[in-house]
């Protein structure tokens, strides 16, 4: 699974993207965030206010309770400031 990070989520985690093998216990986005937080302080810092972090599965916005299914790419980022 390809995970990508943007803006201060990227800065806190320390890498723009990574490949991860996800355990079968991960069903929804919130499970993945919980699992990542267990991988180090950088992840804990990035997700310290997890509810503010936005998520996209295969480049489409999804809520935190969205099923991961056969996603190829999951992105985490702060609220957008386009325009």
């Amino acid at each position, binding site marked *: 699974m390809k995970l990508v990070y943007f803006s201060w989520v990227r800065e806190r985690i320390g890498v723009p993207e990574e490949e991860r093998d996800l355990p079968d216990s991960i069903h929804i986005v919130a499970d993945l965030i919980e699992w990542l937080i267990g991988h180090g302080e950088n992840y804990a810092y990035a997700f310290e206010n997890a509810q503010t972090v936005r998520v996209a599965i295969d480049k489409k916005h999804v809520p935190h309770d969205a099923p991961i299914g056969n996603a190829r790419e999951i992105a985490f980022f702060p609220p*957008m*400031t386009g325009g």
Partner: protein
Amino acid sequence: MARIIVQSAAFDIAAEITRMADEAGTDCGAIVTFTGLCRSEKGALTALELEHYPGMAEEEIGRIAKIAEDRWPLDAVTIIHRYGKITPGEGIVLVLVASAHRAAAFEAAEFMMDYLKTHAPFWKKEHRTDGQEGSWVEAHNRDDVALGRWQD
């Protein structure tokens, strides 16, 4: 079909208006443009650096344009959004809308700008004149409020 471009280069407003007028033909009564410019914040900033999510940025902008085209009678839509380092006074985003009706052109342009502010995957980091580490521009609650106007 909207013309959607995500690029680091500056855009040419005049060329885009000419292109749109040609495309929209001789029964288009109104062209509205919106140019969003980088502000210096009273001299505090040397630049804004825009990070974006390649692929998703184009998709989201295209989706926003499609919603507007379904909602208003539009002859043409162009959206150009830049990424990378942009200095005060330079354009960040350009939206153009052509329609036979001026109210439709105004509303569609404002609608798309409100959506871009809150839905287009771009993030802005400040570069400061005082040399200190700049912060990421935070999303404004007022932009969510602006968006709320368009819900039925």
